[in-house]
């Protein structure tokens, strides 16, 4: 198999901050030992618990964070050891789209200035044609009419419009891979569909790959070649068939928590007013999902399960009982 474009090996990211009394430090293990290959041209979805380290993983892939342990490689070379030329190539080839479009756009620049700057720096269009070039980029992400957006500042755009600008900016350089952190969450379903189509088209035309972080399981099922599921700093399952055959109990729980689209059958309204969500105990030692797991047995308290091959379709899961979990139909 060809070399992965990005490879993580034993990567850890620990955040340290001062506690309120100022008397000590508290640490958060945001990413806690992740091995991951991102293949050239693939669309890899990253889903999972809120706070499980997905955005931190994106920052590591983008060289915005330096891992506290482990290594990130770009086309076989450790990021920490890239020379100036390789670093430049990396910066052009690996692009980002962030979760919060408002904060990723410069509030003091109009769209035309912000994007025009990149066009000139990378010589993407002759000076006289910059505006026309930019208008085409905005049209490609569904902003219509594109010219009317060029002279706006970010705060003069809706959340969805801001996100489309951010996507246009990332795609302008024709990168090899785009790391997108919740690129869909501020878009309505019709624009989401447009953006997903746009990603597919770009992939067809240029073989660009994507790492997409999202909470939208339906959208990821539709677009991803493989999906990684994160829980408390770890990848607990990864594969191409997790929606049809989840092998980790957390993946199963996620899929079963999807909302109903039938107003006559909604389960929240059916719930009695007094019902409270169950408290989740934090598990120390053993499997980190144990406190919430319906499958837990003795061994789960003693040994932390490693990510391992389950079945024959290339799925990896970190669960002692993955085979049994995968064999059960999904209860929806």
């Amino acid at each position: 198999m060809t070399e992965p474009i990005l490879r993580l090996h034993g990567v850890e990211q620990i955040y340290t901050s001062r506690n309120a009394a100022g008397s000590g430090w508290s640490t958060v293990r945001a990413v806690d030992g992740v091995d991951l290959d991102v293949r050239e041209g693939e669309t890899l979805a990253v889903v999972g618990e809120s706070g499980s380290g997905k955005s931190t993983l994106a920052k590591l892939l983008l060289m915005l964070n330096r891992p506290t342990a482990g290594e990130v490689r770009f086309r076989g070379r450790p990021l920490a050891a890239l020379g100036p030329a390789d670093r430049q190539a990396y910066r052009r080839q690996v692009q980002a789209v962030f979760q919060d479009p408002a904060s990723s756009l410069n509030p003091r620049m109009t769209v035309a200035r912000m994007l025009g700057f990149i066009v000139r720096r990378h010589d993407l269009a002759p000076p006289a044609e910059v505006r026309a070039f930019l208008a085409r980029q905005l049209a490609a992400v569904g902003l219509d009419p594109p010219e009317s957006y060029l002279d706006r500042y970010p705060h003069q755009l809706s959340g969805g419009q801001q996100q489309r600008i951010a996507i246009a900016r990332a795609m302008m350089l024709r990168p090899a891979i785009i790391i997108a952190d919740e690129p869909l969450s501020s878009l309505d379903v019709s624009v989401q569909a447009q953006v997903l189509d746009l990603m597919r088209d770009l992939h067809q035309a240029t073989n660009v790959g994507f790492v997409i972080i999202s909470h939208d399981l339906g959208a990821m099922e539709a677009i991803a070649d493989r999906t990684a599921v994160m829980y408390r700093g770890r990848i607990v399952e990864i594969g191409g068939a997790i929606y049809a055959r989840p092998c980790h109990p957390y993946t199963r729980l996620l899929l079963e928590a999807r909302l109903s689209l039938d107003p006559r059958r909604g389960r929240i309204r059916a719930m009695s007013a007094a019902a409270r969500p169950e408290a989740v105990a934090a598990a120390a030692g053993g499997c980190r999902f144990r406190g919430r797991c319906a499958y837990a047995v003795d061994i789960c308290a003693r040994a932390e399960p490693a990510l391992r091959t389950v079945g024959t379709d290339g799925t990896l899961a970190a669960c002692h009982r993955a085979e049994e979990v995968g064999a059960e139909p999904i209860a929806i």
Partner: protein
Amino acid sequence: MNASPVLLDVRDLKVHLRVGPVLVKAIDGVDFQVRHGECVGIVGESGSGKSTMARAVTRLMPNVAIGELSGRLTFDGRDILGMPDAELRRLRRGRGFSMIFQDPLGYLNPTQRIGRQIGEALARDAGAGADQARIRTLLDEVGLPDPANIARRYPHELSGGQRQRVMIAIALASDPQLLFADEPTTALDATVQLQVLQTLYRLHRERNMAMAIITHDLGVVAELCDRVYVMRAGKVVESAETVTLFENPAHDYSRRLIELSTRRHTRGAGA
């Protein structure tokens, strides 16, 4: 059909915003009502004016160049548009209305710990000791594990979904009669989303808290809302009971919205 009296009454609201020489008609003549204890959904295209409406109704419109702001806006019979700021602040803090914003980072104070920010939003009657317990309960209710630890952190030390839950806790702190929520659960994973929606629904029922929820996710509407408004280009193009909207959408855009969502929920229930 909810026959309680109208709590929030919006008539012919217009919010026109200035973008240089151009006037953007973000809201262009909208009628909108929420009854006591009712849950209303607002759906619509990106840029259709949903957030602008929420901000106008709660009168939270920082650094916006307003070209025109007109219409009639009343909450519990009181005129909001003409209300002095001091009275408005009282309304926000004591059993009035709260707002959950789409972009939590923009509305949390980056230099203050989470616990303090929630404390400041608490309805004023509680004492200091009770406050700490209340803050922890609120964090717990929005599904944040280890509330004592979260309370000590700064906003930038939280993930997007955690920040979103903090915003919800702040909004609930004043025990509002009306909660206006702009995309309250988009940054949350499915299990946490379910938990947060259950909490909102429970408070809605227990405290008779009315809710207006802006969302792109028709699942949220199907699960929670009694009625829905569909917006497009600054106008309400359809308003209907939720069941009617799903089973018999009148407007083209509503139909397309339902079709696209259904296609995506391939394995979802009921679809």
